[in-house]
């Protein structure tokens, strides 16, 4: 039997990291319940929504009930952290890690910087953008303008979020800047198919993680979390659409 307080702390830390960085609701609940059960506690219950985690268990039958919750505000996309926490919980459940070791590993994961450097993410956004502009029917001469527009949109998104910290407005600004850059590039003669360049440059902004998680959550019975994630993805898509609509009605 391990100290209930400490197990509660590492469970909630693991859940908080997973939920923040884009794990599905069912995965958070299942991981936390497994970790608590493997430490010898009974009557384990976990309830998770998109914005918070509740966990309760009892140390001895009928006595010493524990119940805590954490509120999760940030929602980012870093699937590497989800994978690493998954690994820690697997080893902890199998009894290969002590509570202290698990605590250290989780804190290290929580403090670690993003898996790929931010400049690489910008360049990757460019590659994704130009690739998709070709797939949506653009020509080879449209690869370069789509690349530039996608990189600039990605830089706008990240810097806007860093300094102003407003949800949805960052996507709107990124879509506006990306669309304007694409229009400017076609205007000065780089690239032919404006539509395909704009679509390509906006693809990296697509909310892929919340969209997929919404489907998964709805199907596994977490209706509340599924609906809220779906609405989050919908709002993100709408703000992208408004940003690009703004730039098109201003400059075309």
């Amino acid at each position, binding site marked *: 039997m391990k100290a209930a307080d400490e197990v509660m702390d590492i469970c909630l830390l693991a859940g908080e990291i997973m939920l923040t960085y884009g794990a599905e609701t069912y995965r958070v609940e299942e991981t936390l319940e497994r970790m608590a059960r493997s430490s010898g506690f009974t009557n384990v219950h976990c309830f998770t929504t998109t914005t918070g985690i509740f966990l309760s268990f009892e140390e001895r039958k009928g006595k010493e009930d524990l119940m805590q919750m954490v509120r999760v505000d940030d929602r980012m996309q870093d699937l590497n952290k989800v994978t690493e926490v998954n690994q820690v919980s697997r080893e902890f459940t199998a009894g290969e890690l002590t509570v202290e070791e698990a605590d250290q590993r989780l804190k290290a994961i929580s403090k670690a910087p993003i898996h790929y450097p931010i400049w690489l*993410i910008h360049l990757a956004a460019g590659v994704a953008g130009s690739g998709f502009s070709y797939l949506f029917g653009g020509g080879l001469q449209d690869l370069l303008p789509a690349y530039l527009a996608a990189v600039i949109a990605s830089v706008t998104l990240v810097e806007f979020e860093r300094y102003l910290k407003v949800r949805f407005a960052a996507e709107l600004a990124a879509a506006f800047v990306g669309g304007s850059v694409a229009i400017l590039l076609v205007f000065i003669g780089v690239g032919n198919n404006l539509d395909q360049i704009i679509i390509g440059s906006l693809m990296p902004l697509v909310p892929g993680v919340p969209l997929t998680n919404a489907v998964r959550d709805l199907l596994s019975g977490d209706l509340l979390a599924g609906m809220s994630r779906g609405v989050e993805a919908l709002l993100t898509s709408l703000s992208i659409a408004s940003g690009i609509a703004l730039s098109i009605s201003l400059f075309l």
Partner: protein
Amino acid sequence: MDLIIELLMTFAAIIGFGVIFSVPKRALLLGGGIGVVTWFVLQTGINMGTSAIFATVLASLTAATIAHLLAKKIRIPVTTLSIPGILPLVPGSRAYFTMLAFVDGDYLLGLEYGVETMLQAGAIAAGLVLALSIFSFGKGIGNRYETGH
């Protein structure tokens, strides 16, 4: 020849997306490979004369099935593979033309494109759900009658 260039483009674009979503390094190439298979299934389906929506369901089902199998094998969360897998199906082009038609004030055309966008998004979800149902046989949640006892 065109298809080969498209497949290469898909591979590069999906790897780019993998970096954007911070997919762990050992899953990057696998995700790109699943994306290539998805695009191939989609294009083959359309070339063989099925509707775009049905081809999307097939492609999404293939992607999600491969993602589930591989995720079990290399022990990572299935989303790290299924998200790159379904990305080539995202109806970005249709969504853009919907927005464009509404900006131009052509509401009927906008609605037409909008319905197509919704159908394609629904088709992706349907493929994901089908694969998920196959892989959660015996683990699902109760729905109507207690037949277990």
